[in-house]
């Protein structure tokens, strides 16, 4: 008990826990979940056992509430993602574990259908018995105990299929090629090796994308015909700029088509209000301790 009350141990646990939680910590330095949990428990025990004053006890009680809430939501809550194309429906979502591992499909308990995608990125969902909810970037919505939100870093409408024209002696054809899904046209298997939505060259003449918006789309294609392969660079602004030796076809990037799909974060965190109350209690306890003696 005396060891737990030693403030040096509390400070060390807090420091290590702060480092473990910080998103800037390289992934190979991230401790296992068990270590992080043990540090949190030690910190809470130290905060409860150490202080003799009421303000310190409030901080300790708040820390205990936060730890219990996070633990409960970790064990009994659910978090995952749900990708829907226009008109598609589902009754489950892909659940993710605490470290982002896929845990498989978890039933929602009701049906969800993507009714439409608005230009501003809002997704209108038909849920349950015909109710309708709208999920906007930066504004999540609730239904049936779950929260649905557009994840930051994932736009509502995701790209992209590249429409490639293949011109040869027999005429020309157009094929849609999606990243990770090669397509076949005019005897050629075409795959996307690298995609640049807003193509530019840096000072070392290396290609990069200035933004994620398809303002100047370009791609490096991997083209295969029987045992021969070519790497073909296509850019919408300069059709047919690259004609590799031995390839008797001209490949041109016509356009980039956005797929009408949305990826949502799905969460059930019943102990979130307790976590919030605990954090506010900790803040109040710290401020209370600042009053003049």
């Amino acid at each position: 008990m005396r060891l737990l009350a030693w403030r040096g141990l509390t400070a060390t646990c807090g420091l290590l826990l702060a480092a473990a939680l910080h998103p800037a910590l390289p992934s190979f330095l991230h401790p296992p979940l068990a270590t992080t949990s043990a540090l949190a428990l030690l910190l809470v025990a130290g905060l409860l056992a150490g202080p003799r004053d009421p303000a310190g006890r409030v901080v300790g009680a708040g820390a205990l509430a936060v730890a219990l809430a996070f633990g409960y939501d970790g064990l009994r809550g659910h978090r995952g993602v749900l990708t829907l194309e226009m008109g598609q429906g589902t009754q489950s979502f892909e659940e993710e574990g605490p470290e982002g591992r896929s845990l498989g499909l978890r039933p929602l308990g009701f049906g969800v259908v993507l009714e439409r995608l608005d230009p501003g990125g809002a997704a209108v969902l038909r849920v349950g018995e015909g109710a309708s909810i709208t999920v906007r970037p930066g504004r999540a919505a609730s239904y049936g105990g779950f929260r649905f939100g557009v994840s930051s870093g994932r736009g509502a409408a995701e790209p992209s299929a590249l429409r490639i024209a293949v011109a040869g002696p027999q005429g020309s054809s157009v094929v849609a090629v999606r990243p990770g899904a090669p397509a076949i046209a005019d005897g050629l298997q075409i795959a996307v090796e690298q995609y640049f939505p807003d193509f530019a060259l840096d000072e070392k003449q290396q290609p990069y994308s200035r933004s994620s918006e398809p303002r100047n789309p370009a791609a490096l294609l991997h083209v295969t015909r029987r045992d021969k392969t070519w790497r073909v660079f296509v850019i919408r602004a300069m059709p047919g700029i690259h004609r590799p030796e031995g390839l008797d076809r001209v490949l041109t990037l016509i356009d980039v088509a956005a797929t009408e799909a949305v990826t949502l974060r799905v969460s059930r965190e019943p102990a979130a209000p307790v976590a919030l109350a605990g954090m506010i209690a900790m803040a109040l306890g710290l401020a209370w301790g600042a009053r003049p003696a």
Partner: protein
Amino acid sequence: MNLAAAAAALALAAAAPFSELGRAAGRRRLDHASRALAAAAGVLLLVAAVRPAARPAAVLAFVAAAVFPRGLPCLAAAAAAAVAAVRPAPEAAPASIGAWMLVAALALGLAAAALQDMAETSGSAPKKLAAPRAAAVSGALVVLTLMLVDGGHILHWGYGLGAGATRLELPGAALVLGLALLVTLAGSLSMGAHLLARSPDGSRASRMGQSLLVLGAGLGALGVAVVAGQGLSRNEAALAAGAVDVAAMLIAVGVLGLALIRLLAASPAGEAAGVRALSGGERVLRLGAAAAMLAAATAGVESWQAEGTYVTAALAEAASVALLGLVAVQPTRLRLARTALFVVALLALLARGG
């Protein structure tokens, strides 16, 4: 460039030495001028509030006007205002106002004031060595900052703003900043030798270290001015991209400047003359830690509203910094180091968010 934010940055940069000079010379008028400058800068930053970095800068400026000592909070506010001056508002309005960043700025202002107070009043070294020690540590901070900005290019006598095709190389500024690094390093080492040897006041190492640090601070300030001037005249977009680096150099050089004012002051007359308005860095630090905890709670609420879950990078970072605040207030050893870590983490939090 936003003129209101630029004027606020200049006012805050002037308010910091005014505050220190007021304390050193025991003149309340200088201290009141510093407070007025900080408050005026806060109002100017409200005019520029459409820019994301201007809002936390305004909070910092108002905190700087209220707390004491205010040198370090003024510098943090000046750096944030400089970023606001050169970084344009985003084309699309953000979904949330980012209230947690404002609370984090409040925490930074309080914690910075507490750190400055503790640096001047705590420590096991004799009181007469406190000012040389602060100067040596501040010099080391300048050296470290110059080594880290722009990916360490200054170590190869290069400096530029931005990256990729829009990168703007500034060879003249690189020369000045490189010299500032070398001179400040020599000054810090010389001052460190004086401290380690516990040589008497006015020893050769002390005099040399003091001179070199003054020269280093001057070169550093000149380097920052050259970077800002050339960036504004040649490529404002590149300056916006490298704004955080410029802000970091501004804070580091400013901290060295404040330490030198204290070192060069003959005696701490300010305290005797009653300039000290608020005592107890410990209490201010606890308020800063409370604000950091509140910022984490606000980040959780905003994440839950925006993304449907509180398990986001914003909450993780805010909670990490709040834990450092909790660590800083523990009554145990290395209090100054823990407080400094808390302040640096808050600065990094605001830099990443802004």
